[in-house]
């Protein structure tokens, strides 16, 4: 596929988002190497470059993580080839070990590090501001406010990098990276570069004596960089003879221009923002009486101007926050407060049902989480449907005791009054108060299923457990003087099958296991109705968080879930560490063969490179085995029953173990035949309230329906429906 950024028509216009514009700027600057790890909102930079690489004769790759991609770009630049590496803001943390010292070694040929910040956390775990990383690393930073600037800055950044011999950071924010605009493209530079490496350059060897010298060199380069920022075309004054001057950077500057009457203010747009162009700002300040600062996230410009002993109207006076992103509405509100803009008209507030984020129809992660939640199952009753008929008591006592007698039933109907009725049975509580209360050791809870069993030889009929049960679900047989408790008929309860009103369902217990999560689509498993995942910190964190909890001494097996790409990125060291330090955790690798959340980039397990060449398919199982895991189970998550059994198997295994849940992301493959709900459905709603597939909904009439345009045809609902009421549509 040829990318639109390969078009050779200088000065013509393209509709580009900020990421695509950076890619265009890079190819205009004749890059030779481009690397990245996917991360919203930076992904489309390398995606666009990889589609242009063969046409324009350069190399592009998806690396396994951001520090690897940075080191590759650095290596290329050390030989005289221009290189670009792109990442999201939190990816910069991963790459920072390399970048902090790369500032000292400097570069040979232009090296541009593109970082996309995410104010308002559209798809991130924090709101860090990369402008402060520029201060921290002492590297120059260009801050783009729209796609045109992104293109121009990307191209120019290579030249600045080469002039100063240090890497340049180009910063975008989500609105710039993912906002599209009409962008004027430039010409392709043709550079003749001799690719070779200076083997005698002591500046590449950062031992202390060399490094302290290079630190001095870096300081000298920064002084030069300040001269560049003072005179940069990216820092532009528009003097309208106004008493009020607005200084801004990023997209917020353009919100202000769109909300205000531009002619009534003077403007200073800052793009080359580190080192801070203080002389230019002083010049601008001398032309106006009041300085208003517009910048998202942290008050970087504010603090720099305060250091110049100038008065400003900043975030506090404007009532703008460093939390979240700016919007035209917020900017209007701020200027209206100062009497400098008209107030916004009050808009209507509508009370509408939210469309919460959810895993897609057919998601393999949902199926796995459902299995994880189904390890410990129990029967529940929807009291709005229960009519108190007592059928459940009859069939239970008949099944278990071969008599029809409610007093011998393991489920009991509770009739509070004429309208309020329900049935109760054992809830398989994680802390099992009944087991705790038993003095004779007669009660035990199955590690695998959570079911409480009674050893009749030991039970003395004292009734302590009957009193301890929070639900009134432990019963005493007055003849035998022994207690009895529901065992869910080994997962196929007769009461559920025979309830005439479909009030009873066999449901799993979400949240009764510790499941440390990670970064990826599967972190959405923390949401209802699955409620399976309980943490999400950073790439690869889940395994080690789980290990920490295990070392601290939490009860039971601790689980960690992460995806295939996250495993390759940062999960492998964590897994090695749990083997080395022998921790009783189960690591679940949700292998869907792709980086799904960022839009389906290949991984080392995909068999395909960024440039669409064939690649070796790396086996996750072999890696897991080679780091020393002895217990490895591979499951197909669509087979819920087998997956439940695999999880039960590891519950009794002591030591580190791995389950690989393996199936391609359904968005990658052709949809299957959609499913439909038959007349057997009694609207128990299990497929909605516990499984939560977005293709399954309940109509206002209370009927369960499957939307055939959304259904992926995965068929998991067919297997989990307790009443066999969902079938695949017949092909006509």
């Amino acid at each position, binding site marked *: 596929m040829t990318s639109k950024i390969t078009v050779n028509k200088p000065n013509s216009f393209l509709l580009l988002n900020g990421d695509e514009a950076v890619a265009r700027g890079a190819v205009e600057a004749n890059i030779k190497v481009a690397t990245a790890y996917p991360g919203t909102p930076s992904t489309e930079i390398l995606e666009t470059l990889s589609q242009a690489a063969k046409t324009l004769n350069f190399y592009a790759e998806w690396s396994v993580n951001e520090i690897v991609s940075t080191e590759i770009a650095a290596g290329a630049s050390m030989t005289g080839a221009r290189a670009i590496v792109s990442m999201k803001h939190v990816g910069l943390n991963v790459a920072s070990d390399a970048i902090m010292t790369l500032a000292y070694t400097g570069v040979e040929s232009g090296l541009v590090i593109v970082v996309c910040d995410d104010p308002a956390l559209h798809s991130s775990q924090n709101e860090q501001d990369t402008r402060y990383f520029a201060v921290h690393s002492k590297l120059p930073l260009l801050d783009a406010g729209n796609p045109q600037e992104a293109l121009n800055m990307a191209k120019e950044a290579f030249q600045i990098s080469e002039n100063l011999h240090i890497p340049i950071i180009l910063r975008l924010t989500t609105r710039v990276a993912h906002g599209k605009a009409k962008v004027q493209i430039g010409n392709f530079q043709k550079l003749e570069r001799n690719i070779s490496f200076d083997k005698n350059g002591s500046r590449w060897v950062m031992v202390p004596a060399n490094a302290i010298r290079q630190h001095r060199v870096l300081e000298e380069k920064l002084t030069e960089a300040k001269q560049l920022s003072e005179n940069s075309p990216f820092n532009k004054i528009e003097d309208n003879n106004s008493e009020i001057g607005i200084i801004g950077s990023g997209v917020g500057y353009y919100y202000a221009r769109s909300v205000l009457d531009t002619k009534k203010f003077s403007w200073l747009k800052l793009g080359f923002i580190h080192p801070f162009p203080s002389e230019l700002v002083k010049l601008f300040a001398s032309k106006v009486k009041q300085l208003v600062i517009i910048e998202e996230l942290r008050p970087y410009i504010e603090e720099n101007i305060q250091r110049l002993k100038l008065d400003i109207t900043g975030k506090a006076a404007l009532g703008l926050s460093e939390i979240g992103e700016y919007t035209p509405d917020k900017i209007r509100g701020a200027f209206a407060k100062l009497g400098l803009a008209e107030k916004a008209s009050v808009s209507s507030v509508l009370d509408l049902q939210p*469309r919460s984020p959810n895993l897609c129809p057919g998601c393999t992660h949902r199926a796995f989480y459902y299995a994880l939640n189904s390890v410990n199952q129990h029967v529940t009753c929807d009291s709005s449907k229960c009519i108190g008929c007592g059928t459940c008591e009859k069939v239970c006592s008949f099944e278990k005791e071969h008599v029809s007698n409610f007093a011998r039933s393991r489920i009991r109907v509770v009739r509070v009054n004429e309208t309020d009725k329900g049935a109760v049975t054992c809830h398989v509580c994680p802390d099992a108060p009944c087991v705790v209360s038993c003095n004779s050791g007669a009660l035990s809870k199955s590690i695998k299923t959570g079911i409480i069993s009674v050893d009749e030889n030991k039970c003395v009929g004292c009734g302590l457990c009957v009193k301890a049960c929070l639900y009134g679900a432990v019963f005493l047989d007055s003849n035998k003087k022994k207690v009895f408790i529901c065992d869910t008929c080994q997962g196929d309860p007769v009461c559920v099958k025979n309830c005439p009103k479909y009030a009873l369902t066999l449901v799993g217990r979400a949240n009764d296991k510790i499941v440390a999560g990670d970064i990826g689509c599967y972190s959405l498993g923390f949401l209802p109705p699955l409620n399976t995942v309980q943490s999400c910190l950073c790439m690869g964190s889940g395994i080690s968080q789980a290990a920490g909890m295990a070392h601290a001494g939490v009860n039971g097996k601790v689980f960690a879930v992460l995806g295939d790409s996250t495993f390759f990125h940062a999960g492998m060291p964590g897994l090695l560490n749990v083997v080395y330090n022998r921790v009783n955790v189960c690591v679940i690798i949700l292998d869907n063969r792709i980086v799904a959340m960022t839009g389906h980039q290949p991984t080392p397990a995909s068999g395909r490179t960024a440039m669409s060449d064939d690649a070796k398919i790396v086996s996750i199982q072999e890696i897991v085995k080679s780091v020393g895991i002895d217990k490895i189970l591979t499951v197909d998550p669509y087979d819920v029953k087998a997956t439940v059994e695999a999880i039960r198997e590891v519950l009794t295994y002591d030591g580190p173990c791995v389950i690989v849940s393996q199936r391609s992301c359904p968005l990658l493959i052709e949809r299957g035949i959609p499913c439909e709900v038959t007349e057997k459905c009694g609207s128990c709603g299990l497929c909605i309230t516990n499984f939560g597939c977005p293709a399954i909904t309940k109509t206002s009439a209370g009927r369960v329906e499957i939307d055939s345009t959304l259904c992926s045809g995965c068929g998991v609902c067919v297997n989990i429906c307790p009443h066999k009421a969902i079938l695949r549509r017949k092909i006509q």
Partner: protein
Amino acid sequence: MQQLDFVFAGVGGQGIVVLSDIFCEAAILDGFDVTKAEIHGMAQRGGSITAFARISEKVESPLIETGKADAVIGFEILETARSLPMLKPDGTVIVNTKYIQPSNFNKNLKPKTQQELLNIIKNLSSNVYEVNASNIANQLGNNLTVNTILLGALSALPNMPIKRESFEKAMANKLKEKYLQINLQAFELGRQSVLK
């Protein structure tokens, strides 16, 4: 010329991003400056998606202020209603009346019916074009043409400054060749639904 602001709203997977791209490409073909912004959640499919397109001689902000949009183009009725605070008082609504009801895990919330949502939309705007694009697309034999039907409807609005030919050219540039003919048909059916 004055600024014209458009909001496209619907559910992930309905083709909102592609459609708003085609709209912007058509605007560029006619010489306008244009910006586009998208708002979507973390989910790949099934979440709310909103796209803003702004055309003028010179556009600076990619986002639209609340209450300033000239038109809302809704791919689904709930998401259309959700976007209506963006609309200016005399703005226009094109709405595909299809209702994709989200899963509801909040027992205290009673979801609105399709008719209730339509009433909300009609109460807030006196300029509503109901287009049953999902039905038209089904009759056409390809339910993925909902977006080009709505583009056809949008192109036929009075005072639309972008030329019909530019929309068709932008579609030809953007869509795969084997799908172009059916999408051009869909575009024409969309136009007729507004012009009739």
